[in-house]
């Protein structure tokens, strides 16, 4: 019924108007996000072509390339299967305890990858190398696929499946040909995030003793006192992430799944699992135990095993670390959610090669190791601001905002897509001002997606380590840096409480995320 209202009003000329302001703001944001890349180019050109070529051409590069590529492929594939499978079970079937799983399945996102690997490594020494890395990283990042796929499965039009079934297509065939096709964009988007995050991961691999390009970049920063050499290697990483982005673009193709009817969405009745219900519950339960149970168990285990009763953390209390971590996360989440709006509006509501390129370019930053982005900001404040602002809270927050912008963009894009321009136009035609339209129509429809974007950034900040170590104000510890410090000293008993608190702090937004994605589930009754 909404659609009959909306359609005639859709005003083509307004849409075609060149969004100059939007493009300008987006360009500015993209330029800010390109700062780390500029830094890489400056430093690398300083090192000289000869040295850079020598660094890249050594035998280890091939080994690292293979390590990085095989891990990225294996983990991305596993995440796609596990994330999609879990999302389908929760969203489309009558899986017992659906609403609890919807929350529990997201929380592993809140556990820093290095805490997951700490949990496994500290309990079982066989967890290392390639197998260990695949296991730990899959458990740590599958929610990046689960979240968007769950959202897309819910908002997908059930009519297509019903038509397929009524035309005699079997259940399994319908799943593969209709359901998966509808979720394809979300699956690919999730896989893209997984692959980029894997490229930049450091802490987990360092604990697992698995060498990738990023661990080598850290070695270079740490060992040879050679920032240029580390930057040269980072450029290879940028090249890899361009490949990933290109690959995802190709796989996505030009096809788009559209729902023609606007307005309130009809909810499909959950598929009865029948006798498959209990195996399905067992599977989801096992996933939650492995991804959530093991790190929590390990933390509690180490608290009770504790050797030295009080190797004092000194000046920094747990509360202090929580307060700072939460404040940084909230500030960066807010900035990113706001900054992602113009870019998302541009990407969703307008077409054009330049704008498309602009939006895609912002993803590159996700594959850059935090230490590179941290050094880039240190470099720029040193060279252009005489060191002002360096190691202050605002610069650290800006650093986080740059690092996690792509995560916010994913959420905000989904939000903007839910609030089609046509509704704006209706509102405007009914005499509401532009601001009022934004407030009463666009933001209201997009609200949950914006909250999701905020939460994703918040979670990532809570678990960020390497850039934080460089830029955090002296004397301040975040939960992650304090955990890392104890862990580095093998003071597991002291490290463990910080791991638990990190999980607890990040579980709040995870819960919000889970509930947001579960919203319509409750409407199913």
């Amino acid at each position, binding site marked *: 019924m909404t659609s009959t209202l909306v359609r005639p009003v859709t005003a083509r000329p307004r849409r075609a108007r060149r969004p100059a302001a939007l493009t300008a703001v987006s360009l500015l944001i993209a330029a800010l996000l390109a700062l780390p890349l500029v830094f890489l180019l400056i430093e690398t050109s300083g090192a000289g072509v000869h040295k850079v070529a020598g660094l890249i051409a*050594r035998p*280890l590069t091939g*080994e690292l390339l293979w390590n990085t590529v095989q891990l990225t492929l294996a983990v991305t594939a596993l995440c796609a299967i596990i994330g999609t499978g879990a999302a389908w079970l929760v969203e489309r079937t009558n899986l017992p305890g659906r609403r609890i799983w919807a929350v529990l399945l997201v929380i592993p996102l809140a556990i820093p990858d290095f805490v997951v690997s700490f949990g496994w490594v500290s309990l079982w*020494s066989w967890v290392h*190398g390639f197998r260990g890395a695949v296991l730990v990283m899959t458990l740590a990042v599958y929610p990046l696929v689960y979240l968007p796929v769950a959202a897309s499965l819910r908002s997908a039009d059930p009519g297509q499946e019903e038509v397929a079934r009524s035309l005699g297509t079997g259940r399994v065939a319908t799943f593969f040909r209709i359901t998966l096709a509808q979720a394809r964009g979300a699956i690919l988007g999730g896989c893209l995030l997984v692959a980029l995050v894997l490229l930049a991961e450091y802490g987990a691999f*360092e604990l697992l*003793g698995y060498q990738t390009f990023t*661990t080598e970049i850290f*070695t270079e*920063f*740490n*060992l040879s*006192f050679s*920032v240029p050499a580390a930057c040269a290697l980072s450029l290879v990483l940028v090249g890899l992430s361009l490949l990933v982005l290109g690959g995802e673009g190709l796989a996505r193709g030009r096809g788009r799944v559209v729902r023609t009817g606007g307005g*309130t969405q009809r909810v499909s009745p959950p598929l009865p699992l029948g006798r498959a219900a209990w195996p399905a519950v067992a599977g989801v339960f096992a996933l939650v135990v492995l991804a959530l149970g093991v790190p929590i168990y390990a933390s509690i285990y180490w608290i009770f*095993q504790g*050797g*030295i*009763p*009080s*190797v*004092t953390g*000194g000046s920094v209390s747990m509360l202090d670390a929580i307060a*700072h971590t*939460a*404040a*940084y996360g*909230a*500030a960066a*989440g*807010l900035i990113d959610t706001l900054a992602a709006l113009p870019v998302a509006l541009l990407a969703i509501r307008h077409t054009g090669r330049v704008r498309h390129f602009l939006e895609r370019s912002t993803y590159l930053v996700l594959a850059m190791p935090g*230490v590179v982005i941290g*050094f880039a900001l*240190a470099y720029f404040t*040193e060279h252009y601001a*005489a*060191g002002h602002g*360096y190691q*202050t*809270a605002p610069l650290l*927050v800006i650093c986080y905002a740059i690092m996690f912008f792509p995560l916010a963009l994913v959420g905000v894009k989904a939000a903007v897509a839910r609030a089609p321009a046509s509704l704006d136009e209706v509102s405007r035609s009914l005499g509401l001002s532009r601001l009022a339209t934004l407030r009463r129509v666009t*933001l209201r*429809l997009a*609200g*949950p997606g914006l*909250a999701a974007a905020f939460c994703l950034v918040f979670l990532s900040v809570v678990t960020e380590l390497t850039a934080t*170590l*460089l830029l955090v*104000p*002296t*004397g*301040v510890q975040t939960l992650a840096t304090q955990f890392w*410090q104890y862990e*580095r*000293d*093998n*003071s*597991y*008993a002291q490290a463990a409480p910080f791991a638990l608190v990190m999980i607890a702090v990040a579980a709040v937004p995870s819960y919000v995320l889970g509930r947001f994605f579960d919203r319509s589930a409750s*409407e199913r009754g």
Partner: protein
Amino acid sequence: MKRTAMRHAVSRHEIARQGAGLLAAVLLACAALAGCGSASGSSASGTLTLYSGQHVQTTQSLVAAFEQQTGIKVAIRSADEDTLSNQIATEGANSPADLFYTENSPPLQNLAGRGLLAKVSPATLSHIPRQYNSPTGQWVGISARTSVIVYNPRLIAAGQLPTRISQFADPRYKGKLAIAPQETDFQSVVTAYDRAYGRAATLSWLGAIKSNAAGNIYSSNETVLSEVNQGAIAFGLVNQYYWYRMRAEIGAGRTHAQITHLAAHDPGYVIDVSGAAVLKSSKHQAEAQRFLAFLVSPKGQEIIAHPGTGPGESLSFEYPLASGVTTLAPETPLSRLQPYPITIGELGTGTTAIALMRQAGLL
């Protein structure tokens, strides 16, 4: 249909309200953050900033005693010493750091080579035997330790262990050896090997070690030690204090690994020096020099010597370098060690060792 729509409207209203609440919380948080920022900013003018790669607990213990004695506040920034060294180089003339305290000499030598360190006061330098200080007087040695073999007696008998570092390359140790080639401690062994046997021999030795340690190459000494202790691997080479620290942490009952020295004057038997320096860019030169003086004073050195977690103690388990202060653990006194004779200057920044390890495919 209509009712669903209404419910939607209600829930959206709620979301909007929650959103407003969230926004308020964020703004509050930001305000609090700005408050913290300005507070620490104003107090920072009267305090020293110490970049420390030394173990946190040791550093905190030393700083607490210094603050009590002098009334000068010291803000500690703890991270990996090499990262800090790079960071100071990137910060250049605007570095917020006044002092740099490390576990090993190469990061200090790196900054000295870039001309970023101030001269240490001669009185401070005179407390420490000359061979442990910066050859150019730009940093002072504080404590030292030596490399040892760590082994698990359940997996290998003491008599079966190599006694020389060159024997680590013996094929009979295939699958028994663990190493952490990225650690500065391992670099100094490679530098010593290169000095003793020359480049070609070092390369083939590294190649053999890589094959013997295949699957057991770790990024930290702590991991090598805990793998040996858990019985996952037979032996490795680490600095002795890691073993003492682990024993203090997990208790003697769960310490299965043992340590033993290599043969006297073997290139694998190297002394690593922990040192400290004042940055040339520091605006608090006098106070910073006082901190160095404190580190080499009897009080500072006693803190390093006395194992414990109380005031005036630390879990350093290193050898204090000033004469007259002795340790309970390690048991062998520093004067009785028989290390390979290599100077701080020869250890340098470790670039040759790194180049060799790269060539051998270990890095």
